[in-house]
């Protein structure tokens, strides 16, 4: 008796579960007439379906979910506003930004916030395949020209294409600027040499070219700039050797004193 009733109960439960299952799929097929509204995860209704039923699919390239305004995606540098201060390079934890600066012979121009531009960038490359999207470079940028955009779909076929160049100088222009600067230095050196030879002894302490790059922001170094430049010009006949020693020396000297000095620097710059 119990076996028989079990048998019929099993059939009944089979029929019932089939009916329920069919009803469920029918419900979904019926609500597939419309698509779901795009919800941000902040939405309180996000995890409860509620009234928001229908097709889930987002036809990606054709439609996109809006990204948060403070999202960190692809980097963009507005070259016209860049003063080539090199701060982003120094702060970058993964060294994905590479800048090849050329000193200008004078004031190049002003950024949109009024900061003076004294350097050209022959190269301003950001390798997005190395980037860890920490956003530190955008926080240190004094002119806020380096920003993280909302563009997140920049996949490429070759990893080399992930290096985005922002420099606005063509190689020819860059060479021209370099030559102009060399010429300028040479002229100045000639002038100084004729004026006084005795100053050289003093400058041996400073030795490096590096102080030159920094002083742009450091008021205390400013008076020494012209003198340093003279020094520098003696060894470098070619440009590259001059810039190369700059880097290794720059970081160790810069780091320990970096943090405490920031507030005064920025104030000075703005003034």
């Amino acid at each position, binding site marked *: 008796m119990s076996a028989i009733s079990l*048998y019929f109960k099993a*059939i009944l439960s089979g029929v019932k579960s089939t009916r329920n*299952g*069919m009803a*469920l799929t029918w419900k*979904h097929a019926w609500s*597939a007439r419309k698509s779901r509204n795009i919800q941000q995860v902040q939405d309180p209704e996000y995890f409860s379906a509620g009234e928001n039923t229908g*097709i889930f*699919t987002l*036809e990606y390239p054709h439609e996109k979910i809006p990204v948060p305004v403070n999202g960190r995606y692809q980097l963009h540098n507005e070259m016209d506003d860049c003063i080539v201060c090199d701060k982003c390079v120094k702060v970058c934890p993964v060294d994905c930004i590479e800048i090849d600066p050329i000193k200008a012979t004078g004031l190049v121009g002003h950024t949109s916030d009024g900061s003076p531009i004294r350097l050209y960038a022959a190269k301003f490359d950001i390798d997005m395949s190395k980037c860890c999207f920490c956003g530190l470079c955008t926080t240190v940028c004094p002119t806020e020209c380096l920003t993280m955009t909302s563009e997140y779909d920049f996949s490429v076929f070759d990893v080399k294409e992930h290096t985005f160049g922002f420099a606005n100088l063509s190689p020819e222009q860059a060479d021209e600027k370099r030559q102009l600067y060399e010429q300028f230095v040479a002229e100045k050196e000639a002038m100084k040499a004729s004026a006084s030879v005795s100053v050289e002894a003093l400058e041996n302490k400073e030795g490096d070219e590096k102080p030159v790059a920094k002083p742009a922001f450091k008021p205390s170094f400013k008076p020494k700039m012209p003198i340093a430049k003279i020094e520098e010009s003696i060894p470098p006949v070619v440009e590259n050797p001059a810039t190369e020693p700059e880097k290794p020396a720059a970081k160790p000297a810069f780091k320990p004193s970096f943090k405490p000095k920031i507030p005064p620097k920025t104030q000075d710059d703005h003034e």
Partner: protein
Amino acid sequence: MWIALLICLVLISLNVVVGVYVERKLSAFMQDRLGPTEVGKWGLLQVFADLLKLLQKEDIVPFAAQRKLFLAAPWIIFLSIFGAFSVIPLSSGVWLQGSQTEMGLMLLMGIISLDTLGILLAGWTSNNKYSLLGAIRSAAQLVSYEIPLGLSILSVVILSSSLNLQEIAGQQGIFAEGEQYLFGIKYTGIEVGSMGGILTWNVVRMPFLFFLFIVFFIASLAEANRAPFDIPEAESELVGGFHTEYSGMRWALLFLSEYGIMLLVSILGVILFWGAWYSPFPNIGRFVLADWTNGTPGTLLGTALGFFWLMMKSYILIALQMWVRWTLPRLRVDQLMYLSWKVLTPIALFFVAISSVWSLLK
């Protein structure tokens, strides 16, 4: 006869195109997806893109396979299904029925069972463990489910007193001879033979045939290797089941057969239970809807209308098959056998007994 052959060939080919597209879209909607959207408007050309891809693919024969049998197996499967269409009346009249043999239904069951041979051959000659397992499962499944399928067909045959499918079809509407009463009970005194429409369909003439139709439908799902009875293919455990080793157009042929048998069992179900090629509208007073929507048998219009109604009803059944497929999970082998031998066969036997008694009382 030649017309029927050509039409059946075109029908099977079109069916696979329509079936694949509808199945993709339907399954997508049931799962809150969109399905194909990119190729053509609403993804309509997706199936053709896939067919072009299949055409270009290499027809690979495994080194260890028994080459000749391996190559022949898909043809056996396809021909056994295509052959079954020869006795199917696709409309009223004689144009759209390949063979008007009196033994039509018997012949059809015989030809369909050759399908088992093809599947077993395909799996065995592939020399692949998954293929062989799929083939063995398939053979066991098809042999088991032919019993409830045969019994449910038998009930209809008992009530119709004919094995000729065209005659079984013709009984279910206004072109039938003799008087018919509502629900097949003379006592009601409501004569429906002249009204036709849904009132003279087999499921209404003998209401208990509805339960038999469910038995038939479940068994036909198993015959067509459709989910939830797709253990011969069971892609999550057996890769592709018996057709694991097939590729390119030979695989497409197997696919064609799979959708072909879906159409075949749907048409068969419609012919046996749901009024064949008759329209569902009865004659009501001066609104002779049945006369208007059925035309005259033998004329071009009548044939076209019959074909239209048959296809409409068949595709509703195909949609139902798809609905079931995307709802129910696959049965285990023991559950499969349990359902066939312990549930469907007793129910079918019970209803065969009832139909026998019913036909005596009529």
